[in-house]
């Protein structure tokens, strides 16, 4: 069997309002189950997914942050956040759960290069 494909998942949408964030996480966990190396990049409104301590019971949804906290259990620990998006949204990495690595545009180009498959949500 050929080497396992490296998957980069780019998250650009805020959580809850649409299903993108949930779908993306399902794909990530499924890749994890298949032991594919997965990296997650959060950019634009996707950075809001990383604000921890969600409580989505009142809107009848499951907590995204609880599932995201499980990422290390699936050996998914390569998390990146676009530093420019953080700045635009007035956030710091210290505001975020899962301790992502802040990356600039060049590093994002590099991430796309290094991965075999790129999925956007």
């Amino acid at each position, binding site marked *: 069997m050929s080497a396992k494909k490296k998957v980069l998942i780019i998250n*650009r949408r805020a959580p809850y309002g649409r299903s993108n964030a949930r779908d993306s996480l399902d794909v990530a966990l499924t890749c994890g189950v298949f032991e594919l190396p997965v990296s997650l990049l959060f950019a634009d*409104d996707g950075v809001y997914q990383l604000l921890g301590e969600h409580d989505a019971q009142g809107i009848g949804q499951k907590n995204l942050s609880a599932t995201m906290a499980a990422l290390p259990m699936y050996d998914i620990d390569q998390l990146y956040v676009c530093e420019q998006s953080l700045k635009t949204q007035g956030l710091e990495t210290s505001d975020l759960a899962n301790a992502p690595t802040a990356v600039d*545009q060049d590093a*994002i*180009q590099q991430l*796309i*290069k290094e*991965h075999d498959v790129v999925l956007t949500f």
Partner: protein
Amino acid sequence: MALHTLNRAPADQSCVTRCLNALADNDALLLIEDGVYAALPGHQALFAALPDSVSLYVLQPDLQARGISEKVRDVFTPIDDAGFVQLACDQDKVVSWF
């Protein structure tokens, strides 16, 4: 090398900027659906910072549907659906911006 597809119109700035910033040397960009409007002369400035090695394509049926086939800048190569498939096969990955 990656093929990037963009399907949002220019006013959807975050998506367009995100896509353009992600383009690396020798990548290809294909404008599809509402993304084809960015090929009009009025949006030339959006592409100013791209490396020369990035090749630019636009999906002909989407141009035609919107009545802008004759109006887009000639730096964009029009391709049909078969050309889209060929382009996707020629690159080692496809990144879809939407």
